């Protein structure tokens, strides 16, 4: 069995048509969001497990994470990570806002049609 087969089989559709309860576009996005929510929970629990193990082994002291104060350079790196992360996820909002300010934006398909007309 290839890795790709395993991925396909794990996520296989069960026999029987899928019901939709919301606008299918919305339901699709919600389904993706719910999987992300699941994976975030998994990541959170993993970090929690690590913390508890490090504490049990005496590497980490109780309260150390909550009182952790990054130095200036670490702080900048971390805050920039947040900014990049948010910008990455909210890309579509940025692009729709950019589009709202443009009056002469043209679709590539329209240009393609233009080019056919040009050739004639």
């Amino acid at each position, binding site marked *: *069995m290839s890795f790709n087969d*395993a991925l396909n*089989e*794990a*996520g*296989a*559709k*069960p*026999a*029987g048509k*899928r*019901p*939709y*309860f*919301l606008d299918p576009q919305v*339901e699709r996005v*919600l*389904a993706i969001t*719910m*999987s992300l*929510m*699941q994976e975030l*929970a*998994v990541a959170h*629990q*993993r970090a929690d*497990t690590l913390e508890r193990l490090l504490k049990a082994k005496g590497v980490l002291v109780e309260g150390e994470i909550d009182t952790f104060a990054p130095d200036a350079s670490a702080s900048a790196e971390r805050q920039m990570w947040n900014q990049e992360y948010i910008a990455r996820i909210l890309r579509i909002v940025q692009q729709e806002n950019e589009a709202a300010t443009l009056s002469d934006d043209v679709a590539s398909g329209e240009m393609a049609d233009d080019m056919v007309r040009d050739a004639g």
Partner: protein
Amino acid sequence: MAETKRPNSPAASYDGPPDYRVIGRHGVFPQTSHDEIERINFLAQMNRHLAARVVPGVKAAYDARVAPGFAAAHGRPIATRHEARKAMLEDPAFCTWSALRRMTMEQRQQAGRWTVIRQREELNERGKALIEGDDRLVLNPALAIPRYVSAVDHHCMPGSYHREYAPDDFTNGANYDHAGFVTTGGLLGKYSDGGGHAVVQWVKKNLPDFAPKKILEFGGTVGHSSLPLAAAFPDAELTIVDLGAPVLRYGLARAKSLGINNVRFVQASAEDLTGIFEDGSFDWVQTTMFLHELSTRALRNIFAESHRLLRPGGIVLHVEQPQYAPDMPLFEQAMRDWDAFYNNEPFWSRMHEMDLDAEMERAGFDRAKIIHGGVYGVVDREIFPDAAEDNTEDYGRKAAWHVIGAVA
């Protein structure tokens, strides 16, 4: 947990499914990584959240908007559970809950399947080593899978109970067993056997002199509810009949590794066991959470087979979610019907409105000898939630069942 609970400690006020790590493992149980366990914990909490915190909103919306809206539009109140469900389909509260409940089920299947599929070869080897050459497993590769099982995969479980992906495959048995916790939230206990323990308790209390030697369970799947019967009556021989080879293989490997040896697994349809078992050859025929995955005709055939197979004085017991009695509110009926329409349990709706007493009579049982009862899942209450005390209603999923049976 067993530790003493201090006031104000999170453990003192915690109410919900236990950590998946309390689940009982055995020789053919798949390995689960940290993150796979947490995926299951998350999904069990999702179901808990939907039942405890979202369903009350669906009910409130039904009372405040759906029922009055229907009455205003039609000049009469909602009259059937189907009208109630269809009216709720127009309401965002029901639709959002439904979408999330469906997705949780789909995520559970993907999560459980991934865990098993990634280790399939190793798991199949382990299983094979446990059951190789054992004559307590009788498979019939030529068995036809009826349409009521093959057309839609029950509870969105790809490949259902019968599909095989490799020779001597255990995949679908292992997926069904190890990740079912997502739906039950621990209400069935360490070995998902709270239903079986409930049946045993009921039988010992209500039929104290019953000493069965030959027990037959239809649709026993991997033996979750069956093994407690075999354990409670060690002198008896328990035979499990099911359609699916992967669940039967898995069932025997699981039973042996749990030290239960008075069980046999036979691949056959319980609709017709002529040529396999003789008339009157059993003392007890049991089904647990089984009838709702049949069809009307299959249910009739199976009731008739149970009658044929029991010796005079033998007992048949069916354990199922409660029927739709006229005094059950239409909202509850519609919510219970959800699985029929949106979770690939097509017979659920029809089955729960059938007159089962009449069906038992039709199968040859004497109406005067029909048995009715009720049971709750029996679990280790130190660790697992107790269904009898749990007030959350997760329509159709709670470990609270009706018993209908008869003395032959």
